[in-house]
């Protein structure tokens, strides 16, 4: 009985002293494993990115006044009461309800007129991101592809031309200039948001923390304690249509209507289902191709010097011991390859991140280092040496010992 220690030493010597061949094998193994791990990760990342986008954006429904919030009737929007919000919360499949406070932000432009300077006020319906009565940050980040910093605001991209001229995008603004007469302060435009049904009632988005610091807690609370509209978070994108129907039926009597982007929701669902199968096929094919390449190269390595098996057989090794020897040798190579390919994947995957422009938004696609693919890689690294050695074991049974030795 040949001990495992002897098998390991002999295999290690074979790996080390046949460095050229071993390196070639490790390279091919690593490429196979990278193919089997990276390509499915790209497809998986795309699906995940799309799903994440859909779950972040298309699972929200706006409930607002059917008449809109036209100035000066901002107060007209403020008829969504607490009991109404509770009613909405009790509807099936609704995960969360966000009452969103709407207020007016004025951007002040100084104009020289008849020898004096007058103030021109540009009005924008504004909301905050974060905090009570604010928009969920993940939704804003996804819609606007940007996190609002602590010094400014985001603006509806369609309204960018309504801003007064500015140096370095810095503006003098005030919240509720009328009738409270709050003091103006400086803020900068940090970016724009693509048009979306979710921002129907919103021109401008503030960072809640920034406004609290600038206005002070009391002024901030008094300015953003209303419910201008309600943002409803549905638990699953598939339930959105049903929730919208329920909302429309139950809220119509209050003059409220659910707003969502039906066309884009259907398009996204269609895109997701259309992408799922091809990417699953591509991912599966990549894994299969990687595995087959490994088996092929392993098998070639075991039969390229078949006389070795013959020699060992004449020296008292059983065919099972020869099988174990070949397996240990291939395991050494495949484990090294797995380590290399995993490290390589970690390094390479971030560089494969890309942006997908869709529905006016930019979706960040990050190929994910999914544990499942590493597990598959690990299984291959262990299973392929066994499979190849077993094939060699079966093939050896078809040759006489004399034939095998003559291949020397």
């Amino acid at each position, binding site marked *: 009985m*040949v*001990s495992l220690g*002897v098998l390991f*030493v*002999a295999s290690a*010597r*074979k790996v*080390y*002293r*046949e460095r050229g061949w071993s390196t070639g094998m490790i390279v091919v193994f690593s490429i196979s494993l990278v193919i089997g791990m990276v390509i499915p990760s790209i497809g998986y990342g795309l699906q995940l990115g799309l799903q994440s986008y859909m779950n972040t954006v298309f699972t929200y429904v706006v409930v607002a006044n059917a008449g809109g919030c036209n100035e000066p009737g901002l107060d007209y929007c403020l008829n969504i009461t607490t009991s109404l919000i509770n009613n909405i919360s009790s509807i099936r499949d609704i995960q969360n309800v966000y009452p969103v406070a709407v207020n007016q932000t004025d951007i002040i432009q100084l104009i020289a007129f008849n020898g004096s300077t007058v103030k021109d006020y540009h009005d924008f319906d504004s909301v905050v991101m974060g905090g009570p009565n604010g928009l969920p940050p993940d939704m804003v980040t996804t819609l606007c592809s940007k996190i609002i910093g602590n010094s400014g605001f985001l603006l509806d991209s369609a309204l960018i031309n309504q801003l007064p001229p500015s140096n370095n995008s810095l503006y003098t603004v005030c919240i509720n200039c009328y009738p409270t007469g709050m003091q103006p302060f400086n803020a900068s435009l940090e970016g724009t948001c693509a048009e979306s049904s979710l921002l129907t009632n919103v021109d401008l988005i503030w960072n809640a923390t920034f406004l609290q610091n600038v206005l002070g807690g009391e002024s901030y609370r008094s300015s953003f304690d209303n419910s201008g509209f309600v943002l409803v978070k549905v638990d699953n994108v598939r339930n959105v249509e049903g929730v919208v129907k329920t909302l429309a039926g139950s809220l119509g009597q209050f003059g409220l209507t659910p707003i969502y982007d039906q066309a884009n929701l259907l398009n996204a669902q269609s895109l997701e289902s259309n992408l799922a199968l091809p990417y699953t096929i591509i991912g599966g094919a990549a894994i299969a191709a990687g595995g087959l390449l490994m088996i092929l190269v392993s098998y070639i390595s075991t039969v390229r010097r078949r*006389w*070795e098996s013959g*020699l*060992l*057989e*004449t*020296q*008292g*090794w*059983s*065919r099972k011991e020869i099988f174990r020897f070949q397996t240990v040798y291939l395991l050494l190579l495949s484990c090294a390859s797995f380590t290399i390919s995993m490290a390589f994947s970690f390094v390479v995957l971030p560089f494969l991140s890309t942006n997908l422009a869709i529905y006016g938004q930019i979706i960040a696609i990050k190929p994910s280092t999914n544990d499942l693919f590493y597990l598959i890689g690990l299984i291959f690294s262990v299973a392929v040496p066994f499979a190849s050695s077993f094939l060699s074991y079966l093939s050896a049974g078809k040759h*006489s*010992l*004399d034939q095998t*030795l003559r291949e*020397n």
Partner: protein
Amino acid sequence: MDGINLKGIFKAYGAIRVLEDVSVDIDSGEVLCVVGPSGCGKSTFLKILALITMPDAGSMKIGGTDVASMNQKELENFRRKKIAYSFQEPLLLPYLSAFENIACVVGAPRDIVVDVMKQFRLGNRMNHTPTKLSVGEKKRVDIARALLRNTDFLITDEPLSNLDPGTSEVVMMKLMEYASRGKTVVYSSVEPAEARYADKVLNMLTSPHGQSP
């Protein structure tokens, strides 16, 4: 312990008849030398004895066992346990050193391997891989490996080829010492003079093949 009894062994490769009606009886503890020129079938005969190939006809008893009636698996097990073989062209694993080619392959203890290698004048070649060994050195490694398997039957094909007279003497002494422990040793040679160490000689110059004392 029973030796080897072959009767009417016939072997052909296609149309070429290599062995015809070869019969030989060797008792345990005896040394048989198969003598004949190149191509006369010595190696084929030794491979049949080592169960590497099987005859087309004839009866074979090794150690009292009728090996001709065994199936493939039984033959493999019998060969593994009972027969050691060394090649005419020494066959070593290229990635193992001379020492490892014996110790790893046979699984013999280190001190015994070192001792035998020193006796075979390989003491300064232990860590050399086969590419750095001469043919004669490889031959000695091959024979040492077969000896250390300590099987009942040792078959060695032209063990003295490529060896200088001094080393040949050492190798033959080891083979005879091996036989003296009740083992059966069969070796081949192209030189009739090298048959002087054997208890029996199978002369393959004279056909049909027969044995002489």
